[in-house]
């Protein structure tokens, strides 16, 4: 009988304390840094590719790793109406370049990283109107490149260059070597 009387009493004393601790933990967890929202849409593989083939020739910055490029719908819509002259893609345009572990990925192989350009002129980390970021596919971590490394290389796309159609007219192509222009 003593036990039967004392256990509820102890429980009555402990339960409010536990509830208080849980409430505090809940508040603290809510106040903690939230998981940053991904800037890379998960459906990039459903987008159209400006280059149908796998790019695996050696280039500075990416080496001889296989590369597959995707551009989202806003980019295609804009480029479709812009012709072959100056290109300035609208905000919201996203270009994803899959980087594979080797130059010859097996069928179904997943990329190891995504090198991504997000058109966001108002972002303080943007360079040339684009956010340049790298997503590690193993960890899911996205790193914004704040140095001018990416932009410096891609600036060459705005004049004649050695890739794709080589931009023979030297038009401003908004840092894209392979813009989503049908036929390029």
């Amino acid at each position: 009988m003593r036990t039967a009387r004392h256990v509820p009493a102890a429980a009555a004393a402990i339960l409010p304390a536990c509830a208080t601790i849980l409430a505090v933990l809940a508040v603290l967890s809510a106040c903690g840094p939230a998981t940053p929202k991904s800037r890379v849409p998960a459906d990039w593989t459903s987008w159209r590719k400006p280059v149908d083939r796998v790019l695996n020739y050696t280039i500075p910055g990416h080496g001889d790793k296989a590369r597959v490029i995707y551009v989202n719908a806003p980019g295609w819509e804009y480029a479709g109406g812009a012709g072959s002259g100056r290109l300035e893609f609208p905000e919201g345009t996203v270009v994803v370049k899959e980087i594979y572990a080797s130059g010859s990925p097996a069928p179904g192989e997943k990329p190891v990283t995504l090198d991504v350009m997000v058109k966001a002129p108002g972002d303080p980390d943007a360079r040339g109107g684009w956010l340049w970021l790298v997503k590690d596919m193993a960890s899911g971590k996205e790193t914004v490149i704040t140095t001018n490394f990416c932009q410096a290389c891609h600036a060459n796309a705005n004049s004649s260059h050695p890739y794709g159609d080589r931009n023979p007219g030297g038009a401003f192509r908004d840092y894209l070597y392979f813009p989503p222009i049908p036929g390029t």
Partner: protein
Amino acid sequence: METMRPHRTTTLAAKIIRILVIALTVGLGIAALMFGLVLTSSRQEVTRESLNQEAAMLQTAIENFMLPGEAPIAVQFFREIEGANPKVRISLFRRNGEIAFSDNRTIQEVNANIRREKFAPRSSPALEMQMPADSVHFPKAVSMPPQDVFFRQEDDAAVYIKIYRPLINLPRCTACHGSDHTIRGVIGVQFDVSSFVRSENLALASGGAGFLVLTIILAAALGSIMNRGVAAPVAAIGKVCERVAQGDFGGVVSVRGNDEIARLGRQVNDMVRGLRERSELTKYVSAGTLGAIQDSQEPKRVRKTLLFTDVRGFTSYTGSHDPERVVGILNKLLEEQSRIIHEHQGDVDKFVGDEVVAVFSGEDSPARACSAALAIMAAARKGGEAYDGLALGAGIACGEVIQGMIGSARRADFTVIGASVNIAARLCGLAKPGQILVARDARDAAGTPPGFSFRGPFKTALKGVEGPSVIYLLEPEGDAS
């Protein structure tokens, strides 16, 4: 029991000075530190931005010089910049840290890539006397992603700020240099900031010295002001209080202004004046009267011991001596009696001519009154010629009396009345020169303390007292034996 710890005495002025010095040192020290930090930070920021712009300009220049293969022009450009600004040193490194243009390897690679001997090998290096790449910071510049690296370097002679800015192997460079690498090399710009650092250090030293001098001057000035305004007046008040503690009520605080300390000084002066007046008053008014004035005591019945003394044959003495001498001798006698009564915790109730009326309170008051009477007689005998041979008689009685303010609205005494008062007065009148007569109640209450004895009992008739009264003769112990 409270333990008294010895401690060093510090004056108020010293404490004020100490507080001021600490406050000024901390306050001005923080200000000087902030000044130094801002100065250093802004200089570093300016230098960094300047280096950054210079490196960007050099990068653009070398990219444009190298596109047509004009390395010698690029080198000449570097040298001219260095000549125009001796504080600047420019270096160009290959991506592995070797000094660029130091041999013909790049020329050979370019010729191989373009499949023709466009560039002729040189017999001597285009760039000489360059400093080697820093082994700690250079690898950071050529890591992926490549980044600018700023750092500070010192030697015995100078202080330098350096930047390593990587040169990217841009697509337009790949025709000559190939596509198998990302970084072509690194531009190193070194800026000699020794003169800035010296100026900075001089400014900091001057600031520190100025801070020190300012602290001393401000501490001295504020300390002097605080000393005159606070410490000195407080010390003056303390001195007056010290004199009061020694029984000297003659001190007065010199008060100026109307601040808190001035008000304190006035209050102390008021207090000392009150004490002085009270002290003066005790010469003319009994302690019981003073207590009654303070406490507004109501009349009440209390048990007291009464001691009466007066001078035998004083009336004939006054007729045969000068008034001045009479008053002088009498005052000496009364002064001595008063002193003895106070020594025995008695209160001189009043002087009535040559008569002294004293009141003793407490359980042992009969013994103290007897002891006081013996001491008075001894003093009178010892005084001898000093009192013109005058002798005293004394009477002591104890019992319940009425204590209260007796008199008129204009003049009153806080005194005692009652049968015991009357008995003591009668016994005093009955006593022969040198005799102390004690009523039975007082003798019984006094017991037999060491130093005195009682002779008796004797029976006598006292005016105003019904029936014979039993009395004793009080003598020093030696006389009674």
